[in-house]
């Protein structure tokens, strides 16, 4: 194939929260719940992606609670995709911009093409389209904003819903006291290794905004497919007080329920590894979805998390991959 300059965008890291772009690309005008983790996440992603961006919004909270007709919160172009096909619609958009650029019908910078998919739209019903997009090597950032359930339909279990969660499809009862009996899928691991053109995968938490914004920028600077698994606590689905969204995002890291890392050209870089992990109970006790669990269930969760922590410790060489969070005064 002939070489062609598509004018791909490249971004510098954001050095501090203060130096983050002032302009917002995800603005008020939506109907998300108070304390919505995915909405805050959207704002941060859109802010650092900037104006030359196209969002693909598969059905999910960030579609249903955001995109009221004639009143959407996106200051950049946005297109709805079915919950099934975020990766495929994004592939078509990317293909269109490539051919339009080659034919001289478009001469701007190559747009940031970002799929903002929920956990169901990423690794359940949307998995096939996401995988194929990455396999084919489209220059698309696929984001899984993980609120750990099918939330806008009334909190049903998804493949990333944690063990023991009470959802409307996994209600605890006499026969099934723990509610959800399965442990979650691991989205980054589904994509890492199986997609030769995928070069960058990272995890984030809304509680670590600088880390988050820089991972977005890094992902967008790659000239191929990238994937971010973004923890976005959900007050409604997890049943915690809406003022605790950031706290949940922190406790997830501090207990080892979630870890922050980058996978770049085959190597893992972990950041924000706690010196001493808190017990998972510290995280779970704030969340109504775990309230019914007995001690043996919490012990089972702890054992699952301990195993994850062992893996982190084994693989981790803590490095400052991206600028760290500013220290508290």
């Amino acid at each position: 194939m002939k070489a062609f300059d598509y004018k791909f965008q490249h971004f510098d890291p954001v050095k501090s929260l203060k130096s983050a772009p002032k302009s917002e690309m995800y603005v008020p005008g939506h109907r998300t719940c108070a304390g919505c983790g995915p909405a805050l996440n959207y704002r941060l992603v859109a802010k650092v992606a900037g104006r030359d961006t196209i969002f693909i919004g598969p059905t999910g909270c960030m579609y249903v609670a955001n995109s009221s007709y004639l009143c959407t919160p996106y200051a950049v172009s946005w297109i709805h995709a079915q919950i099934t096909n975020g990766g495929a619609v994004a592939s078509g958009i990317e293909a269109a911009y490539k051919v339009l650029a080659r034919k001289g019908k478009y001469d701007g910078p190559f747009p940031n093409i970002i799929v903002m998919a929920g956990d169901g739209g990423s690794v359940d019903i949307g998995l096939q389209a996401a995988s194929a997009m990455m396999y084919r090597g489209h220059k698309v950032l696929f984001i899984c904003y993980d609120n750990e359930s099918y939330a806008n339909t009334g909190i049903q279990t998804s493949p990333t819903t944690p063990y023991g969660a009470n959802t409307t499809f996994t209600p605890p009862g006499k026969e099934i006291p723990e509610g959800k009996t399965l442990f979650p899928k691991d989205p980054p691991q589904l994509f890492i290794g199986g997609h030769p053109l995928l070069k960058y995968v990272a995890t984030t938490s809304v509680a670590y905004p600088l880390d988050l914004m820089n991972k977005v920028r890094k992902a967008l600077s790659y000239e191929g497919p990238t994937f971010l698994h973004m923890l976005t606590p959900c007050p409604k689905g997890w049943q915690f007080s809406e003022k605790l969204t950031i706290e949940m995002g922190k406790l997830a890291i501090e207990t080892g329920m979630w870890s922050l890392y980058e996978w770049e050209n085959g190597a893992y870089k972990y950041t924000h590894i706690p010196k001493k992990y808190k017990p998972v109970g510290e995280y779970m006790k704030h969340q109504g979805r775990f309230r019914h669990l007995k001690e043996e269930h919490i012990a089972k969760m702890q054992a699952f998390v301990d195993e994850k922590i062992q893996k982190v410790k084994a693989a981790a060489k803590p490095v400052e991959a991206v600028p760290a969070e500013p220290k508290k005064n």
Partner: protein
Amino acid sequence: MADEKMLTGCSAAAQALKLAEVEVICSYPIRPYTAIMMELAKMVANGELDAEFVHGEGEHAQLSVVLGASACGARAVTGSAGVGVTYAFELYSPLAGGRYPVQMTIADRTLDPPGDFGSEHTDAMSVRDQGWIIGWASTPQEVFDNTLMGYRIGEDPRIMLPQMTCQDGYFISHIPDKVKVASLSQVKEFLPPYSAPHPISTTCPVSHGPQIRPDQGAPMDAQRAETFLELPGVIKEATKDFNRIFGRNYDPFLEKYRLEDAEIAFFIQGAHSNTCRMAVDALRKQGVKAGMSRLRWVRPWPTTEIAESLGHVKAIGTIETSTSYGGAMRGGNLIHELRASLYDLDERPLTTSFMAGLGGETVWLEDFEFMAKVLLQTVKDKRTSKYVYWIGFED
């Protein structure tokens, strides 16, 4: 000017798509339409066609990819057959409702079970209520022509609708016939470049497909319905221009073959019309006033034209080539809308339906002779004694 070649229906489609300068192509293999994509893949590989060739991971993805491409202002094509057409089902309404004028090129095939490679119209006919423009070609030449006409009609700013250009699997898709391949200048005269009115772009941000309130639903549905009222006029214009530029003689909606004084008529779409035409000639030689009405576009359905051109016929038999289990007439699809189109006439023709060409079976001359006998008996009896005949199973 036109260059005459022996081409299969699949090659004819690929040649027309090349001349239409399609920009995004999304493939997935399923027989028999696959050959269209194979030819397009070669054209892209050889540098004859500057397009993005995306290997979809299934038909659902195929339609999703072309949706995204069309939303950005690229001319996009995909295609399928049989269960591939039904696997993609979620996307038909978003494509039509989103007013993305993509083209889906179909070489039709039976649905499962059981697995069968044969031609049947049931696959694409199942999409008829989703707001697409749908029509069957009856020769490789018409495949070529409908491909260009499809884009012209669908991309018309008054219309903006996706098109399903269908051909019968194997009968048309894999049997070569003479095709006049138009020149690029002819195509350019007929088909202006695609221009999306509100593309997904970075220069003018837009939102496509936000949620609406229930009270906003009906007005949008009504708008789509109104577009279908405008569609016949646009099809007439496009057909007239096409006939002028390419030297053809298409009727926009119905091929009317020896219908003027016909007492009995076959109502048909697609490949079997070629045998049907021969049957009509044979019957005429025997002194039977037979004719044929061939549907060119099943969506939009040409209600008025049917009433005008078939009202005088005494008995009409539909050749169904698709199934509608449990439907009003217990047979195929065409009979329902044919009868509805004739309902307001003071004197209505009698009708019956013939389930023929299912599973990829050939509809033979003798079959048409049998059908003619049934229709003649119907005329004689002045009533329809049986609404459905399963051809090949009748005594």
